[in-house]
């Protein structure tokens, strides 16, 4: 997944971005927070503009970074993508080679885009994309040379939309079973994590990874001695209890794989 030779994309930071950044920064209580909000706002606005140029709809007003109270209390730089989820847009300073992700952005995100700011603050460089993992598995520090290519973001968004459409149309009984089991009206919140599992895990590892994900949302703790290898093996299910849940996990990821592999 390392993409050291990936192509980065320069994006302009418009004057409007600075206007919003000044407005939002003025609402903060101290210098450190003002700087944080200023730079977060610049990056969110620049990525918003970039996605719009790529014909991807966005909704700044529905983003936490555009909510005055949430940005006052939390270090957020998200951009809402309607019917898909929130994309976190983190700024990178010129000399940084790793980034710390604040705990408030480690869940309820579809992924992370990193933008290195230029000293002039008139443009930035999109360095790459990081997929959403299980909240408990998300790294608090991200090595920037391990990011995925930005094209992965487009692939990811496409997959999320295909999955959401398929689930909304209820094209397979497995979706209803998962909703019922997880007590979820819709699966939007976990689709990004399922997509990441599909893209980054080997086929043999997916069953275990999706079962783990289900257990997280059901609030079921993992057995102390269990590691991912154990739960990823079908024959290990007996030791870990819920074969039915693992079967459901496998059915779901197989169905989604079918949808995503058939997209072309």
């Amino acid at each position, binding site marked *: 997944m390392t993409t050291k030779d990936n192509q980065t994309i320069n994006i302009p930071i418009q004057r409007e971005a600075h206007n919003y950044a000044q407005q939002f920064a003025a609402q903060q209580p101290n210098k450190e927070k003002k700087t944080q909000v200023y730079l977060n706002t610049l990056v969110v606005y620049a990525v918003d503009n970039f996605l719009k140029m790529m014909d991807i709809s966005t909704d700044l007003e529905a983003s936490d970074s555009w909510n005055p109270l949430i940005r006052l209390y939390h270090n957020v730089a998200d951009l809402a993508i309607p019917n898909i989820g929130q994309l976190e847009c983190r700024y990178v300073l010129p000399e940084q080679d790793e980034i710390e992700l604040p705990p408030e952005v480690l869940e309820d995100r579809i992924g992370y885009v990193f933008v290195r*700011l230029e000293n002039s603050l008139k443009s930035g460089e999109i360095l790459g994309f990081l997929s959403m993992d299980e909240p408990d598995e998300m790294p608090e520090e991200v090595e920037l040379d391990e990011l995925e290519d930005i094209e992965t973001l487009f692939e990811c968004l496409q997959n999320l939309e295909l999955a959401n459409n398929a689930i909304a149309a209820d094209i397979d009984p497995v979706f209803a079973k998962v909703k019922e089991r997880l007590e*979820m009206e819709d699966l939007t919140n976990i689709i990004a994590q399922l997509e990441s599992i599909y893209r980054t895990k080997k086929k043999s590892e997916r069953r275990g990874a999706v079962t783990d994900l289900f257990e997280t949302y059901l609030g079921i703790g993992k057995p102390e001695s269990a590691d991912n290898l154990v739960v990823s093996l079908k024959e290990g299910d007996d030791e870990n209890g819920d074969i039915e849940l693992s079967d459901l996990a496998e059915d779901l990821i197989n169905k989604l794989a079918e949808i995503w592999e058939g997209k072309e």
Partner: protein
Amino acid sequence: MVKSKYVSVNQMCNDKSNDDLLCEAIANFCQQTPETRERDKAFAHLWSLILKFQIPRTSPHPRYPDLLQEIQLEFSQRICTEFEQIKAGKKSFVHSLRLWMNWYGLRLGFRIMDLDREDKKKNERETSLDAPISGGNNDGNTPTLVDVTAGKFDPMETLIREDFKEKLSAAIQTLVCHPKDYPQCTCAEIYKRRFYRNPPQKFTEISKELNLPYQALMAHNRRKCKPLLKKIYNELLGGE
């Protein structure tokens, strides 16, 4: 909502035959001797394919044709040296070529935006003679990174006072709205756990502790709590 661009992404992924045609045309153009009729002919064929496969972004701007002509010239000067780099893209060649032409290479997309921005700026100058000077943020006074990290960017007075967070905290406690069947999960309870704990409590944990499905929590937060947070903030501040 996001259909059109995915159609284009799909097309990009399916463009294998187009990839071959374009690669052959570029290779043919690049191997011709400069300033020969053969090279001109090869370029004409290549450019017709470029237009046929809709590689360049388009714009209704009256100066777009001139811009496209500039792009055509730059394309002919750079494509042979940058061909291999573009081909190294992960998706189809058509997709990589579009990214190169419109964004990171020839920057046609950005240059179209510049045209639109110039128009907007011109209109603003003509129509807003009374616009505030400090709010204009023209290129001359856009803060740099050094300015921002040193706190030298804020022409506006801090809008919130020391006691503002206390007032907010009191207002948040009044948000007793909750999902049907889960009276324990008020917006006040959620944000007590999110704002006043360090680190903020995870939604998965809140869902478990308040004994409601994760999805019900997230939907309630999105539909009710977040708009209410905006509302109380604006009310306390007298409008943002």
